[in-house]
C-alpha cells in the first residue's frame, strides 16, 4: 500500500514538475515552440489623459493553432472593479497577432490593470498600472486647522533643548580623500541622535562644501557615505530608534511606526522629524559647510522625512523625495498592507483606542499636509506599482506642492524604488540649482 502511495506521489510530483516547467517555458519568451505574450503600454510613464491604451501581442511559436480570449480587468488601487473587456483570439501555428486595447477612464487617479490571456495551451496574466490625469488628484481630507501651530510649538520645544553638538573624527574610517566624523547631538526630549559627516580633503582650507543630508528609510542604519566629489560633504543621520541612535528608543522593527501613535505629542515621528531639524542646526554650526546649499534626500520613510523637514525648515534649499510614504494616510485603508494592518492590530490590543483616534494623530504627520508649505525646489519619484507608497498617494503630496518648483519622475514598471534616471536628474538639477556648473 505504501509502495503504491509512493508511486502515486512520485507520478504526481513529476506531473507537477512538468506542468510547472511548461508554464515557465510559456512565459520564457518567443523561442520556437513556445507561446508568449508581450504587453506594451502606449505611454512611457504609464500616464494617460483620458484613455489608457495598450497593445497585447501574442506569439505562437508552437505548431498548434491557438484559440481563446484576451481580456483585461481594471481596478482601483483599493481593488474595486472599474472596467473589464475581452476579445476572442485565434492565432495560427507559428504566427503572432496583436490586439489594441483602449480603456477610457474619466475619473483622475491611478488604476491597476490585469491582462489575461487564455488560449488552448497557454494561460497568463500580466499586471500593470496606469494613471489618468494625475495632476487632478486631490485628497478629500483637509489639513488640521492647528497643523502649523502644532509644529511651531514642537520646534520651540526643540529650540529649548541645548544641542550639545559633538564632532569626533573617526580616524580609522578616514579615506584618502575624505575625513569621517561621528556627530552626536541632543534632540527633542533630550534624546541623543547620531550621524556621520564626511568631508572631502581639499588643498584650499577656506573651501566650503555643499551639503547633502541623507535621511534613512524605515529602520535603516546609515553609515558614513562618501563619494569622489570634492565639492560635496555628506551628512547621514540616524533618527531616534534607528542605527546608532537607539540609546532610548530601541524597539522591534514592526513596532517603531506604532510607538505612541495614540498621542500626537508623543508620537515617535514627532521626535524623528525634530532630529532632522537638529541635523540642519548642526550643519549651520559648521563654518566649512555652505549654509545656502543644503540638499536633503531620502527614499521611502527617508522621502517622507525629507518632505517634512523641507516643509518645516526653510533652511533646506533642495528637496529630493523618492517613494515618500505616509501621504494621504486616511485613504491608505484597503490600499496598502503596511502600515495599516499593523495599526489595526495595535488598535485592537488597546482598549479605548480607535482607528479614528489614530488617524487624528496621523493627520499631523501626513506627508501631504507638509507638502503644502514646501518652498524649495522639490524632486519626487514614484514607482507605478509601488504597494507601500501608492502612486495616487504620492501624487496627492505632489499636487499639494503649490509654492515651489517641482518635478515628478515616474517609473512605470517599478515598485517601491526608483531608477537611475531619477539619480541622474537629481544630480543635474541640484548642480544647476546650486550653480555647480
Amino acid at each position: 500500500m505504501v509502495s503504491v502511495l509512493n508511486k502515486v506521489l512520485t507520478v504526481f510530483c513529476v506531473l507537477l514538475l512538468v506542468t510547472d516547467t511548461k508554464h515557465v517555458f510559456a512565459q520564457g519568451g518567443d523561442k520556437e515552440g513556445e507561446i508568449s505574450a508581450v504587453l506594451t503600454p502606449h505611454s512611457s510613464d504609464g500616464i494617460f489623459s483620458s484613455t489608457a491604451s495598450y497593445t497585447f501581442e501574442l506569439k505562437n511559436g508552437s505548431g498548434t493553432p491557438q484559440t481563446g480570449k484576451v481580456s483585461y480587468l481594471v481596478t482601483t488601487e483599493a481593488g474595486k472593479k472599474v472596467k473589464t473587456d475581452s476579445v476572442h483570439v485565434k492565432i495560427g501555428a507559428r504566427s503572432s497577432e496583436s490586439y489594441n486595447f483602449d480603456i477610457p477612464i474619466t475619473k483622475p487617479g491611478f488604476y491597476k490593470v490585469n491582462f489575461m490571456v487564455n488560449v488552448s495551451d497557454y494561460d497568463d496574466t500580466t499586471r500593470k498600472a496606469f494613471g489618468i490625469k494625475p495632476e487632478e488628484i486631490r485628497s478629500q481630507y483637509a489639513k488640521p486647522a492647528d497643523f502649523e501651530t502644532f509644529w511651531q510649538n514642537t520646534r520651540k520645544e526643540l529650540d529649548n533643548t541645548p544641542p550639545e553638538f559633538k564632532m569626533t573624527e573617526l580616524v580609522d574610517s578616514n579615506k584618502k580623500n575624505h575625513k569621517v566624523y561621528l556627530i552626536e547631538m541632543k534632540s527633542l526630549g533630550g534624546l541623543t541622535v547620531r550621524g556621520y559627516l564626511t568631508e572631502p580633503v581639499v588643498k584650499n582650507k577656506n573651501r566650503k562644501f555643499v551639503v547633502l543630508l541623507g535621511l534613512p528609510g524605515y529602520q535603516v542604519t546609515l553609515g558614513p557615505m562618501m563619494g569622489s566629489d570634492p565639492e560635496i560633504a555628506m551628512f547621514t543621520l540616524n533618527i531616534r530608534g534607528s542605527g546608532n541612535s537607539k540609546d532610548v528608543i530601541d524597539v522591534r522593527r514592526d513596532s517603531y511606526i506604532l510607538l505612541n501613535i495614540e498621542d500626537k505629542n508623543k508620537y515617535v515621528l514627532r521626535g524623528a522629524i525634530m532630529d532632522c531639524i537638529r541635523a540642519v542646526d548642526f550643519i549651520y554650526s559648521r563654518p566649512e559647510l555652505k549654509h545656502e546649499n543644503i540638499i536633503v534626500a531620502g527614499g521611502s520613510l527617508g522621502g517622507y522625512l525629507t518632505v517634512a523637514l523641507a516643509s518645516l525648515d526653510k533652511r533646506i534649499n533642495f528637496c529630493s523625495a523618492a517613494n515618500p510614504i505616509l501621504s494621504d494616510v486616511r485613504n491608505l485603508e484597503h490600499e496598502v498592507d503596511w502600515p495599516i494592518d499593523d495599526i489595526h492590530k495595535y488598535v485592537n490590543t488597546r482598549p479605548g483606542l480607535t482607528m479614528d483616534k489614530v488617524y487624528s494623530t496621523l493627520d499631523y504627520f501626513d506627508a501631504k499636509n507638509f507638502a503644502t508649505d514646501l518652498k524649495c525646489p522639490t524632486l519626487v519619484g514614484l514607482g507605478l506599482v509601488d504597494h507601500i507608497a501608492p502612486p495616487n498617494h504620492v501624487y496627492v503630496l505632489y499636487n499639494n506642492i503649490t509654492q515651489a518648483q517641482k518635478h515628478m519622475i515616474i517609473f512605470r514598471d517599478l515598485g517601491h524604488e526608483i531608477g537611475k534616471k531619477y539619480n541622474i536628474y537629481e544630480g543635474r538639477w541640484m548642480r544647476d540649482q546650486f550653480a555647480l556648473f
Partner: protein
Amino acid sequence: MGKNIIFMRAGGCAISLHCFKINIIMSLFKTFTRFLFLTLILFVISKNVVFADGGFPVRPGRLLIAPSVSYFFSSTQWDSTGIKKPFPNGGKYSSVGVTLYAEYGISRRFAAIASVPYVYNNYMQNIAPRNTVTSGLTDMETGIRYYLANIDFVYYFSLQGTAVTPLYTNNASLGYGEEGAELKLAFSGTGSLFNRSTYFNAADGVRQYFGTNGPIQNRYSGTFGMTLDDDFKNQLSVSLSGINSFSDDKRFISGIPETNRNYSFIEASLSYGYSFSHEIALYATGGKFLTGNNTSDGTIFSLAFIYRLDYR
C-alpha cells in the same frame, strides 16, 4: 554621458510579514560638471582663436584666463564671384596673434567675458614695397553672457551681448577702426557616443559695426567634441564656423582677412585638448578656410593655455 558617481546607498529594510526592500541610491551626476570644467569650447574664426563655453552657464566666482598664440598664413584669395586665385605679385600674408581671453562667473545667470588681441602682420610680395609689417592691438571684445534656460539640465541656452572696441586708429590692416556690438544666441549640450562623453555647441551672432558702411555680420559656429578617455584628460573637437559680412562697400580691398567689408567664408578647425589638472589645460587647434567670397583663403594654427580658478 556614461558615468555617474554613486555615493550613497540606503539599504533594504524588512517589516515582518510585509517584507519590502528599499533600494534608494542617491547619486549626483557629476560628469556634466566635470566635463565642462575641463572643457572649453574653442574654435577659430577667420584668423582669431575664439573661446566660448557657448550655451553652458559659468560657475559663479570662477575665473578663466586663456592666453593663446596663433599663426595664420595665406597666399590665395577668393574674388567677389568666389573664384580662387593667388595674391597678386606673388603676395604672401602671415599674421602672428596673441590673444588674452578672460571669463568670470558673476552669478548663476551672468558671466563677464573680455578678449584683447594683439597681432603682428607681414605681407610680402615681389614688387615694392616688398615687405609690409603692421602690428598692434586690434578689436577688444567685452561682454556679458546670460544663462537663458535649459532642457532637463542637459541642453543649455545663453544669450551674449558683446561690445567691440578698436584699440587702434587709422590702421586698416588691424580692423575697421569702428566700434561694434554683437548679440549672440548659443545652444549647447552633452551626450555620449561610443561610450565617450560628448558635447556640442551651436551659436549664431549678429554683429554691427557703427561707422560709414560699417558692415553687419552674421557670425556662426558649430562644434562637436568628445573625450578620448575616462579621466577627461584628452579631448578632440571639430568645428565649422563662418562669417557673412554685408556692407554697401563691396570693394575688394586686400587679401588681408577682415579688411574687406562685404565678404563671406566658411572655415573648419580641429582641436585637441589636454588637461593637466582641474585648473590647467592646453589646446592645440588647426583650421582651414573651405570656401569664401571676397576674402583670403587661409590656414591657421594656434596654441591656447587655459587656467581656471574658483574664487567662491
